[in-house]
């Protein structure tokens, strides 16, 4: 079963426009959720995690347990935001932690 769903493979927005990258998860407990980003020719790196409730590079993400969503938002997209974005889920099991990544959304910000 797909634990993390990112419905958009590709997303294009104009510079200065708002952007929302969707993420839905499947888990009934209290998950740990993350957004990772991979810029061109760079390593995958953490963008933000819900437990920190922080805003990084103008991005925020709110955990909505009712909708089981963790969408990533930014009010004004910048060209340097163009990258691949992955939503990730972690939760503990008796056998150890489980980690799931979505299939990713490629964001292109058009100048």
């Amino acid at each position, binding site marked *: 079963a797909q634990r993390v769903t990112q419905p958009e493979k590709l997303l294009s927005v104009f510079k200065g426009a708002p952007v929302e990258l969707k993420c839905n998860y499947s888990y009934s407990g209290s998950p740990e959720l*993350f957004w990772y980003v991979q810029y061109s020719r760079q390593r995958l790196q953490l963008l933000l995690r819900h437990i920190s409730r922080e805003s990084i590079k103008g991005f925020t993400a709110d955990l909505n347990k009712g909708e089981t969503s963790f969408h990533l938002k930014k009010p004004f997209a910048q060209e340097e935001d163009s990258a691949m974005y992955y939503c990730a889920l*972690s939760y503990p099991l008796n056998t150890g*932690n489980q980690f799931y990544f979505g299939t990713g959304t490629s964001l292109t910000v058009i100048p």
Partner: protein
Amino acid sequence: GAGVSQSPSNKVTEKGKDVELRCDPISGHTALYWYRQSLGQGLEFLIYFQGNSAPDKSGLPSDRFSAERTGGSVSTLTIQRTQQEDSAVYLCASSFVAGNYEQYFGPGTRLTVT
């Protein structure tokens, strides 16, 4: 400071051969993770280590895949009798401990099975 390193960066092998991929985590990180990144498939979690032990090996795609970690540091992912569907980028990450800590990723090993 030194990040996560992986070797080799690229590996081309013939179908049926065994390959060994290496990951060197950030010093002091007790948790180490292996992922597979295939086109259109996102990141597939394979296995993680907390210290030298892997609590759950069920993410490994088949019994041709195995991983070990010794001394709480370097880890090797071994694929025996490689198949063409094993072609992918294999990513390693490490974190302070397993769980909700930030994972730091390596550059990956691109494996091509011909």
